């Protein structure tokens, strides 16, 4: 058995307590340990992604208990890609946190950060629904700590909202799990896929309720309208590096929807057919429209970026809700793009805050480090609004192409193109107010001079922007890889048989074994 699959979860779980216990008063040692941990995580994630590249599905049985009795970790193309994306994002966000000094404005930033990574990695790798709940809770409880890092009344108030919303989401998740267990007697995803398919057409009431409840839970995580209300305040008030890391958290919801609704409640399952077409698609289109309208309506730069995250999640969900291999492939390409672009924009917001002192979208004196910050905002905004030449444009093109044969094609094209126009107007308005109109304002004589952001901050943002450019340049190979990923998702039989048939303790003996 290959033990490396457990490493992305175990490593942060060991680094975090070590930071708390051994280095709690030494920010320097904490930084070294944290960066070393994330670098090792990238190496492991890269190795796992290479291993899964040719379509191998690797299984890890905790304590050798066979599924469905034990808990399993499964690494296939999709989960290893998400793990790698998380690890790479974590490195740049961590560098920014160190460069800008955010990690030293409160206690235990690095420990909480590692716990957060542990939860996210676990959610991507687990093959068990209850375990998915547990990892959701791990990543949430770490995110509660990170969200209110450095304190402040506005942040605490937003934190209360965020925690309460997610507590209610967790309760719903438990209701969904209870109904699934009552209907099928298992919570292992592969085993569930087998058993749900065997439920007769007259007894589907319970499982249909469970499918809808589960979709609601994941939609809360993915911030799909009308379940997005937690996002704008908490992302805007959270410390910038934390908000940037949270860019991957909405993707955890999208990942869970892709995983559960391709394998367990697959599109051709009669009981839940139509769930995505009738419910998810309109909700996704509305999220896209509302998110991008929010970009235009926002009065503060941080809210603007938070709404653009809702809009880009809407785009991801539109593509997922098609539930065709082409749609999922486009969604996966867009997920990578939107994570990097969202994170970069949240960090740029903090660069503006450092150089200007305020995020209000009104003309004010020129901010410190104007030219470089403006250039980075320009690139980030182009990527997020989906203008050529960056990956946002390519991703949008893939989504439009995937929806060409859909019966809702007119709606999808109208909303995607219309919302793009609105977001372009919103971003260019914000950019011109922040960076151009500033030159027409004469600064007050005794105005305090704001410090320029630290060089490492620019390195971190520049790294994310470079990754965005690379994601554009290598769009061809990346998209063909996400296409094979989607093909693997739509043929779940190898996954299911790997999980269910691998022998371990307590496995059901095959005929002829004895």
């Amino acid at each position: 058995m290959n033990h490396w699959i457990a490493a992305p979860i175990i490593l942060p779980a060991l680094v975090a307590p070590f930071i708390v216990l051994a280095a709690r008063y030494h920010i320097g040692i904490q930084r070294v340990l944290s960066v070393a941990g994330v670098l090792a995580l990238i190496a492991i994630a890269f190795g796992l992604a290479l291993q899964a590249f040719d379509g191998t599905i690797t299984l890890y049985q905790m304590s050798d208990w066979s599924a469905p009795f034990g808990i399993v970790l499964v690494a296939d193309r999709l989960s290893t890609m998400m793990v790698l994306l998380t690890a790479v994002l974590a490195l740049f966000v961590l560098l920014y946190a160190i460069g800008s000094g955010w990690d030293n404005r409160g206690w235990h930033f690095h420990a909480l950060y590692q716990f957060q990574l542990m939860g996210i990695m676990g959610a991507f790798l687990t093959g068990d629904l209850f375990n998915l709940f547990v990892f959701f809770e791990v990543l949430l409880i770490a995110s509660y700590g990170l969200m209110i890092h450095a304190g402040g009344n506005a942040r605490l108030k937003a934190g209360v909202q965020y925690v309460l919303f997610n507590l209610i989401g967790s309760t719903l998740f438990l209701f969904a799990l209870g109904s699934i267990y009552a209907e099928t007697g298992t919570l292992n995803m592969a085993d569930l896929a087998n058993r749900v398919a065997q439920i007769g057409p007259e007894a589907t009431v319970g499982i249909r309720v469970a499918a809808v409840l589960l979709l609601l839970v994941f939609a809360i995580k993915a911030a799909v309208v009308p379940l997005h209300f937690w996002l704008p305040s908490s992302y805007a008030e959270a410390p910038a590096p934390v908000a940037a890391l949270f860019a991957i958290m909405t993707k955890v919801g999208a990942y869970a929807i892709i995983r559960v609704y391709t394998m367990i409640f697959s599109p051709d399952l009669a009981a839940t057919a139509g769930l995505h077409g009738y419910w998810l698609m309109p909700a996704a289109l509305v999220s896209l429209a509302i998110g991008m309208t929010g970009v235009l309506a926002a009065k503060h730069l941080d809210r603007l970026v938070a709404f653009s995250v809702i809009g880009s999640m809407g785009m991801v969900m539109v593509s997922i809700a098609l539930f065709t291999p082409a749609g999922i492939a486009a969604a996966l390409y867009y997920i990578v793009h939107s994570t990097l672009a969202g994170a970069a924009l949240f960090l740029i917001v903090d660069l503006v805050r450092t150089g200007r002192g305020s995020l209000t979208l009104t003309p004010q004196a020129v901010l410190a480090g104007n030219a470089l910050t403006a250039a980075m905002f320009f690139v980030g905004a182009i990527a997020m609004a989906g203008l050529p030449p960056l990956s946002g444009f390519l991703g949008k093109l893939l989504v439009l192409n995937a929806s060409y044969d859909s019966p809702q094609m007119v709606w999808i094209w109208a909303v995607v193109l219309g919302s793009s126009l609105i977001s372009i107007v919103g971003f260019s308005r914000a950019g011109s107010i922040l960076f151009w109109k500033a030159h027409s304002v004469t600064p007050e004589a005794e105005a305090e001079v704001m410090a320029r952001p630290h060089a490492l901050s620019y390195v971190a943002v520049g790294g994310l922007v470079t990754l965005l450019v690379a994601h554009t340049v290598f769009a061809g190979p990346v998209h063909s890889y996400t296409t094979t990923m989607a093909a693997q998702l739509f043929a779940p039989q190898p996954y299911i048989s790997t999980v269910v048939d691998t022998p371990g303790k307590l496995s059901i003996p095959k005929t002829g074994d004895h």
Partner: protein
Amino acid sequence: MEFLVASAIGILTAGGIYLTLRLRTFPVILGVSLLTYAVNVFLFASGRLTVGAPPILRDGVSTYTDPLPQALVLTAIVISFGMTAVVVMIGLGAFLGSDDDHVDDQPQTDEDRSEDAS
């Protein structure tokens, strides 16, 4: 017994939702606690209701109760307990700091924000 358990879950959930919709920290936290109690009982019942049956294999016993929901419920209780403690602390901090216990966004002025930004 089914009726009693089902109505207990229903009443707890209804009370929880009502309190959650009050949008002030204290009732909302109480409401979320009620919801977690409801979901704990619900999870417990998801393995079917059996009285006085052992969960572990034993000689001479023909009816068993499902042990898995008990393990699930234990995890759920621990997690919801911890989460409630966290939200009480954050809520208390927010209330003491801003002297306001609304959970929803209140209209904000720009002065508020620049004061709090750090």
